[in-house]
């Protein structure tokens, strides 16, 4: 028996395109039954019928009002199917398509394909428990509640009625023998299966039940086909992708190559004005191969689009993405490091760190006088200015921009109690931030400075207070950054080990021992300096227990190169 495909077209807009496609199908030997939505005006409809009147293989079925998610679409399909089966007895397969579908491959290829798979129904049909595509949170419930109100026009009534039914625990009984399945509306069924569904003695019961199911066009045939089909291929031959709101993605002229390479038989939905697509695919049929439909690439593109719309790019803040706190999917776009106290303790810390890790190392970005970009350049990536007023106007944007602008390159910067502190919380809460603190190192520049001791004492008290507050933030339960705090006394005892840990965290791949140490300032007399502070009543507790005497490690260290070899 030769395969003969009949096409049912559900049309509601762009009638001229529907006419074009109907002609193509008839030209390739397929009878067509068209259903036009009753919402289309009489005059327009008549003109449409007239335009196709020269084709004897085109029939028009009785018109129903088709509103999204309602029974009308199923009724229209049923009636058109019945007409197809009755009027064209040669038809072996019925293909359900819409007015915005476009055949991508010649019809004889579809016939060959169906002939090679006899008695097979191509209809996507999955149990509700297993499919995540439902929109609006109604999956199993669409079969057990009633939906007399339109979702499009009376959303409030719809929602209210749903929640009322939930509250009173209303459940409809699903007719015996039916297991709710759902899937794509666009199918291709054999005559046997389709006629069995339409001529079922229980059809009245089923119809009455599905009439009040939500979106019956996605489950009526999908459920009933399970009763009769001998072989179901649970997939649609129509390429049709849905976005996160459940509306179909649209194809444009620039999808031409993608559609061509997809090897699908029919695609939906095509933009009405995609002249080139219609021209190419309805023109001379290209000689393609007998391959399986392979929409993988299109799938990926649309999946990415949905992902972009629902999750977005981490760390991006812009005109159409400005997430509430906690909804960022990553506060910043990549990991970065904040060093506190290191540049006070080491004379050449920045160049050393840049050389050792290969990262971009800035000075104090939140310095009150200017944002100290690497090399103290006045402007940095993306056009960020070093102006403190601009930065302070929106410090959060400044930091996020910096990290976003330098995607792919790790940023490190210095921070300390002399800097603007408003950014502390943002740093602490960002899981991408790595914060390494030598607490109390702010005392070193004081120790080295040439000021009066009374001023030093006052300044030390101020800085200690600021840093203490900062450390409280770092220790709070909201802090999500990777935080490591050494007191200065701890750090100075074994600086190379500490530095090694830090560097390993930044560039784990290197995995080699540090060969070169940054130059530590000469701390001779620092212990005494601290003791003097204490004697004046100002206890520098953040520094830890720094030995007064003997003066620490730096002197001996200069003499030899420790840790050079194992």
């Amino acid at each position, binding site marked *: 028996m030769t395969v003969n495909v009949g096409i049912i077209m559900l049309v509601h807009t762009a009638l001229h395109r529907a006419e074009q496609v109907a002609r193509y199908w008839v030209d390739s030997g397929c009878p067509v039954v068209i259903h036009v939505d009753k919402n289309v005006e009489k005059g327009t409809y008549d003109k449409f019928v007239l335009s196709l009147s020269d084709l004897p293989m085109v029939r028009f079925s009785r018109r129903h009002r088709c509103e999204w998610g309602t029974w009308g679409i199923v009724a229209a399909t049923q009636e058109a199917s019945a007409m197809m089966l009755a009027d064209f007895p040669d038809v072996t397969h019925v293909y359900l398509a819409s007015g915005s579908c476009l055949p991508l491959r010649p019809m004889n290829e579809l016939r060959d394909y169906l002939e090679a798979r006899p008695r097979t129904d191509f209809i996507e049909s999955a149990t509700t428990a297993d499919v995540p595509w439902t929109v609006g949170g109604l999956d199993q419930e669409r079969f057990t509640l009633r939906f007399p109100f339109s979702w499009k026009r009376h959303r409030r009534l719809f929602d209210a009625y749903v929640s009322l039914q939930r509250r009173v625990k209303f459940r409809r009984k699903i007719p015996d023998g039916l297991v709710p399945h759902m899937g794509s509306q666009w199918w291709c069924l054999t005559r046997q299966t389709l006629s069995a569904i339409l001529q079922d003695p229980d059809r009245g019961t089923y119809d009455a039940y599905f009439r009040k199911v939500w979106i019956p066009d996605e489950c009526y045939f999908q459920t009933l086909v399970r009763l009769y089909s001998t072989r179901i291929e649970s997939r649609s031959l129509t390429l049709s992708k849905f976005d996160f*709101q459940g509306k179909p993605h649209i194809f444009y002229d620039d999808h031409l190559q993608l559609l061509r390479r997809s090897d699908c038989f029919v695609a939906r939905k095509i933009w009405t004005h995609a002249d080139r697509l219609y021209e190419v695919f309805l023109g001379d049929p290209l000689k393609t191969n007998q391959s399986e439909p392979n929409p993988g690439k299109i799938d990926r593109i649309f999946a990415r*689009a949905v992902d972009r*719309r629902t999750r977005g790019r981490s760390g991006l803040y*812009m005109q*159409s993405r400005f997430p509430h706190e906690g909804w960022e999917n990553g506060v910043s776009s990549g990991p970065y490091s904040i060093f506190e106290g290191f540049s006070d303790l080491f004379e050449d810390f920045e160049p050393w760190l840049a050389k050792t890790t290969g990262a971009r190392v800035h000075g104090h970005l939140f310095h009150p006088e200017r944002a100290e970009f690497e090399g103290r350049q006045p*402007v940095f990536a*993306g056009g960020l200015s070093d*102006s403190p007023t601009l930065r302070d106007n929106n410090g959060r*944007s*400044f930091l996020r921009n910096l990290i976003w602008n330098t995607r792919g390159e790790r940023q490190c910067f210095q921070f300390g109690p002399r800097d603007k502190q408003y950014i502390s919380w943002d740093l602490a809460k960002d899981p991408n931030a790595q914060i390494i603190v030598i607490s109390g190192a702010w005392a070193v520049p004081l120790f080295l400075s040439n000021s009066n001791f009374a001023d030093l004492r006052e300044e030390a008290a101020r800085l200690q207070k600021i840093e203490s507050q900062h450390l409280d933030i770092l220790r709070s339960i909201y802090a999500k950054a990777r935080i490591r705090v050494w007191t200065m006394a701890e750090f100075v005892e074994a600086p190379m080990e500490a530095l090694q840990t830090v560097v390993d965290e930044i560039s784990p791949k290197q995995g080699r021992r540090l060969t070169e140490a940054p130059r530590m300032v000469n701390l001779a007399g620092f212990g005494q300096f601290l003791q003097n502070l204490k004697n004046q009543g100002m206890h520098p507790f953040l520094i830890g227990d720094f030995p007064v005497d003997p003066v620490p490690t730096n002197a001996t260290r200069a003499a030899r190169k420790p840790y050079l070899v194992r």
Partner: protein
Amino acid sequence: MGLWRSYKLRFQRQKWLARAIRKRRELSVVADRTHQIRQSDILLFCTLRNEDVRLPYFLQYYRDLGVNHFLFVDNDSSDGGREYLADQPDVSVWKTAAGYKRSRFGMDWINWLLMRHGHGHWTLVVDPDEFFVYPFCDTRPLRALTDWLDASSIKSFSAMLLDMYPKGPISSVPYQRGDNPLEIASWFDSGNYMISRNDDFGNLWIQGGVRARTFFSDMPGSAPALNKVPLVKWNRRYAYVSSTHMLLPRGLNLVYDEWGGEKASGILLHTKFLDTLTVKAEEEAKRRQHYAASQEYLAYLSGLQDQTDLWCKWSEKYINWRQLEILGLMSKGNWA
């Protein structure tokens, strides 16, 4: 939003609409071809003053995108631009000699024309130096976008203002009538935009770019706002509040996603920084008809006289919309 605030905003919207109706008297017709407008047409609204030299390229750019009809308000031009526009087959022109400032920087006039002619249409409100870029604009006409917005039940589409500038002093390359201004002003700042939420109107407040970097680094609060919503499926009850930065009802300002995703958005390439600005800045600084007593123009004037170069080594050269998408200045959203 509480009832009281909702009521206040409603009152405010009605105030702007009443004002627009009152200010219509300031407009007189130069060329009215609005009878040509069909129901599905995309309309462009624009206020201008002495921009003749930019008009040919401007019209061509938007005709190529698929704008069907242009509605201009000419604020007392003296350079022949009005006559040029009046001769175009798809343009309607009104003129007025009234104060730009008194009409809230032209917004009252535009609100009136929108109310009168924009109802039910997709409307694009831009300045003559702004060029609208949206996802896939090199392969899909504007109607593809508006059809998609319709299908997605989206009523407004945002496009941030992106200031473009040339490399070298602004006056070094003269702009000729009909030229593509983006060939001269082809550079921009890619990532120095400061964003905050405006809770009154629900919009985002975006400042930054080259103007904040060079002219407003000491007074960032006064830097020009860059957030814009230029493309709206208009209803006669809508009103622009302040330029095209925000609208009422405030739902139209929610062009951004707050739950992590990205909505689709575009860019307005702002080609203000051409050699024509030098003359304009002098005039506008004197006229004081612009925002905050033309403070902006005063800043340009002092900046431009000493041959400032806006370009820096981190400037990006404009290639296409995909570049802007990758840089995170605009987004495809779920349009693919």
